[in-house]
């Protein structure tokens, strides 16, 4: 999310990050934000029919190349999270400081894995 914040600064746009914890009521200022969140949830879930449905909707909304890129990002982060959590990777002090506000507001500090990571 540090990069999402950097993107805000670059573009001047402001994003509602509540979609990150599944509580976004709309796209949060990001094109097709709700649909992208639904896709990530479906890929990591176990409901095949739901995944097929969301994939079709996302394909219609953003096209095949963007669908592929979306699946690729979900795949990479599903793995990189495991690299971090299996090795006890701490957040760098600069990232910890920069993320302090939204970690608190999104409840990230309450994650089981948060102990000793900041």
């Amino acid at each position, binding site marked *: 999310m540090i990069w999402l914040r950097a993107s805000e600064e670059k573009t001047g746009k402001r994003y509602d990050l509540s979609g*990150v*914890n599944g509580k976004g009521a709309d796209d949060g200022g990001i094109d097709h934000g709700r649909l992208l969140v639904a896709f990530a949830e479906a890929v990591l879930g176990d409901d095949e029919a739901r*995944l097929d449905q969301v994939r079709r909707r996302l394909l219609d909304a953003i096209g095949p190349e963007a669908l592929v890129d979306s*699946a690729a990002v979900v795949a*990479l982060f599903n793995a990189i999270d495991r690299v971090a959590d299996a090795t006890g990777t701490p957040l760098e002090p600069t990232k910890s400081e920069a993320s302090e506000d939204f970690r608190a507001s999104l409840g990230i500090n309450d994650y089981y894995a948060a102990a000793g990571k900041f």
Partner: protein
Amino acid sequence: MSEISFDASPYPVRDDIVASERAAWARLGRAGSWWSGPERPAIAAEARHALACPLCLARKEALSPRQVSGMHASLGALPAAAIEAIHAIRTDPGRLTRDWYQEALAHGLDEERYVELVAVVVTTVVVDTFHRGLGLPMPALPAAAVPGVPSRRRPKRAQVHHHWVPTLAPQDVGEDEVNPYEGNRAANIHRALSLVPEEVINFFDLGGAHYLTGAQMTDLGNEPRAIDRAQIELLAARVSALNQCVY
């Protein structure tokens, strides 16, 4: 020999993604630094098998995974300590702890083999999750072409810094050692697997293709993908939240 193919994909998969997954699969079938040729695909197979393990499912539902004891449903090709590590990393990564890691070592996994095991599991996760996202069947795992002998090269100056596992600081890379930090910023996530430097390179080869390269990450003026930066980061952040990952 199995090879990853997207010929049947209804969607156009970028060449760099195809190349990175094929290279990862080929490496999976060869001896690594600490696990042999047959052992590495066995780790990948066990990672897939973990998704249907009743013990893992029960632990996932429990308030604390340690409340639930029992035996993993395993393929039986690897030591028990490796099975526990693979299953926990694959099915409940957000609740791994330093104590759990220390127990893995106490039960016979050494540090180097643990780090390479993590690398093999996450390689499998990238490939399998990508295929699932596109509605494609998971590719066959590579058969070990030759048994192979692990190189057993540990960076001389690797030690415990800020991670649970020993890592190699950039200034400690020896002249005759593989440098895991060419092309990346040596952020903590890059250092995580650096006890086995080849695996840093391997994993972030997948990372550059599936997400962004190091140069692309910091170049906020360009949009190198068919989804924009905000869409990429929203997907990444939602996945991390679902995995309860704070990094």
